[in-house]
């Protein structure tokens, strides 16, 4: 009886224990166990909202509301903070001012066609209306303020213009994702555009491409290409620059962008583009921010191969940002220095997992993950461990090293594998001039820069304290050596003054 009971308990508990355990990467790139930083809190599906979703594409958090677009139902949904449906809009009336400005008397309300991106600011709602080749700008009463469908750039055809002779290379403007800064400047990722992120002014005029990645050829490639004929060059695989997958602007007007991994940017799929258009993301962690560090390459039928496919990025306080890996359904959270903080998320059909994440967004401290396949928003909440990590980083950013170290100590207690916590403690010890202890901590956290600083102080202190002994022994040893040499020279009958 007792055996049977034990067996029953084991059978019941084992599946719970078999849930994927959290991991992280050590300094050496090994996969090590880690405490989970975020865990499933709740979920919102179409049934709860009382609507039918077909293929949700993008989600954005504005104040206390969640805005979501669906490319299957061609609708815009607004969800409030209690995860109740607030609005579901499929058609939008024009504002009178827009009709006046455009001098048209259109009465039919505007509808969307496969919208795939949305962003909301104080001045309105911006929808990337992909199927209609345009961006729609709404006010907060869901009335159309403006429509942007013509980009004055050689890449694009004018709306309703067909690709005739002379412009076969041109493409239609198909916006996929959009993010808008405080001055209503739009940053748009369009389909089949490799020049970068389109920067469009508030009035719809095209400004420039930003975040362009120049292609770097190795000297050997340049040499071999110079030898090839035109036909051979045409047969080569095209060297395309970064293809962006998503962008999200933060409150300082810096754009967090994710891109597809290609051969020439394997290590920078995540970028932080400053207003000048330069990638300024810090890569001071053990590895550059790129999702999974270790992965199998080469096709096989057993495991998912290749680097992470990052499809969305969301930033929160203190420069902490999370990226979504669609390929393995994982969430990677980094701090502003580029340290990998924690990896969460799990692939699966259960409510606490997702199988085709398309968008993420920070909703207060929670992280919302939009799953296209199950048409669900999964809410991830920080665990005690994750909250401590974020708190410590907050204190560190504020320069409160003492408080930060106290929190890092709690973190280490929960997860002694957590190497970056040791650096946080080490920094406090360095400030307290406990150099030897600081060195130990920096060694555990593999921070060579601060180790060097601590070691310098430590070594110089020892040298200073023992200067008399060290100098004395040097003088003594060399003096003895010279004395012995002189003695042996005299004994042999030689002279030290003249060389014989």
């Amino acid at each position, binding site marked *: 009886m007792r055996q049977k009971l034990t067996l029953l308990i084991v059978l019941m508990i084992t599946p719970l224990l078999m849930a994927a355990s959290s991991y992280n990467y050590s300094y050496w790139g090994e996969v090590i166990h880690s405490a989970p930083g975020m865990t499933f809190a709740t979920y919102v599906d179409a049934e709860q909202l009382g609507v039918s979703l077909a293929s949700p594409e993008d989600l954005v958090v504005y104040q206390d509301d969640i805005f979501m677009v669906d490319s299957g139902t061609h609708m815009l949904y607004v969800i409030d903070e209690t995860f109740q449906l607030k609005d579901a809009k499929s058609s939008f009336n024009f504002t009178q001012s827009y009709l006046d400005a455009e001098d048209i008397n259109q009465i039919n309300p505007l509808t969307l066609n496969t919208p795939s991106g949305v962003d909301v600011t104080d001045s309105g709602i911006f929808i990337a209306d992909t199927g209609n080749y345009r961006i729609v700008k709404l006010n907060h009463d869901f009335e159309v303020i403006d429509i942007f469908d013509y980009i004055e750039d050689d890449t694009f055809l004018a709306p309703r213009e067909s690709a005739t002779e002379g412009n076969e290379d041109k493409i239609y403007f198909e916006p996929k994702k959009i993010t808008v800064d405080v001055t209503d400047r739009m940053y748009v990722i369009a389909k089949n555009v490799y020049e970068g992120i389109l920067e469009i002014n508030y009035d719809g005029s095209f400004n420039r491409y930003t975040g362009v990645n120049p292609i770097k050829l190795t000297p050997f490639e340049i040499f071999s290409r110079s030898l090839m004929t035109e036909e051979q060059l045409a047969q080569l695989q095209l060297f395309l620059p970064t293809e962006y997958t998503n962008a999200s602007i933060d409150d300082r007007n810096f754009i967090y962008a994710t891109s597809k991994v290609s051969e020439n940017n394997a290590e920078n799929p995540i970028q932080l583009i400053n207003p000048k258009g330069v990638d300024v993301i810090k890569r001071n962690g053990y590895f550059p921010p790129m999702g999974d560090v270790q992965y199998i390459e080469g096709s096989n039928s057993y495991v998912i191969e290749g680097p992470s496919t990052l499809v969305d990025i969301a930033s929160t306080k203190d420069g902490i940002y999370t990226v979504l890996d669609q390929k393995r359904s994982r969430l990677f959270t980094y701090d502003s220095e580029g340290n990998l903080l924690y990896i969460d998320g799990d692939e699966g059909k259960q409510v606490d997992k997702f199988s085709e994440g398309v968008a993420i967004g920070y909703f207060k401290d929670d992280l919302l993950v939009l799953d296209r396949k199950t048409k669900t928003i999964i809410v991830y909440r920080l665990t005690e461990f994750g909250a401590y990590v974020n708190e410590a980083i907050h204190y560190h950013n504020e320069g409160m090293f003492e408080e930060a170290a106290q929190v890092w100590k709690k973190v280490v207690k929960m997860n002694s594998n957590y190497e970056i916590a040791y650096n946080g403690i080490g920094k406090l010890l360095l400030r307290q001039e406990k150099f030897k202890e600081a060195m130990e901590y920096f060694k555990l956290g593999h921070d*060579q*820069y601060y*180790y060097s600083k601590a070691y310098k102080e430590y070594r110089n202190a020892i040298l200073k304290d023992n200067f008399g002994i060290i100098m004395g022994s040097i003088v003594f040893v060399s003096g003895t050596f010279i004395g012995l040499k002189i003695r042996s020279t005299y004994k042999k009958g030689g002279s030290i003054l003249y060389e014989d």
Partner: protein
Amino acid sequence: MKTKLKMFYQHYVRFPSYILFHPFDGYEEFKRYNQGKFRVAIVFILIYAYFQIFSYQNLGFLINNNNPLMLNSLQEIFSVFLLVFLFTVGNWSVTTLMEGKGSYREIFMVTGYSLFPLLFIGFPAVVLSNFLTLEEMALYQLSMFIAYFCAAWMLFMGILNIHQYGLFKTILAFIATFVSMSVMMFVGLLFFDLIQQIISFISSIYEEINLRY
């Protein structure tokens, strides 16, 4: 005992450093008066293999990017031996065709002797790297650069002297040696790859037959 120690000092320190600073006279004695000793070359190569392991483990924390758990002593030793073997065989086969006067034994000894500055500077430099900060690490880099430069110098002068070549012929011989080394590597890899395929072929035949009968 004292004479033995003195001879040891003469063979292992004095004479190699004499060659380093007086390459022509040194290698003259090395070749003509049999001052170069085979056992010294072997000991130097062995110590160099140990040096590789030593520096893997004991290089200062600030510049040591080796995972201590990944140290494979046999691999380190083997890679040193392989390099020496490839170079000596490559050089011998090239210089035989180019009318070099040196024998295989002499090429081997020159290779061994030329490791002398690497050992003489390398060990103290690795120890020193433990007592340097990140800014002072240039000192270690410099000393290792000097060590490698001296080693290259000794090797170059040695090959020049034992084969009784001129400057350009020596350079040519070196280039040809590297070509022959890469050819040997290629043939070796090809050989192992084919062997592997044959083995897998035989094993799959065995498996098939085993399953059938």
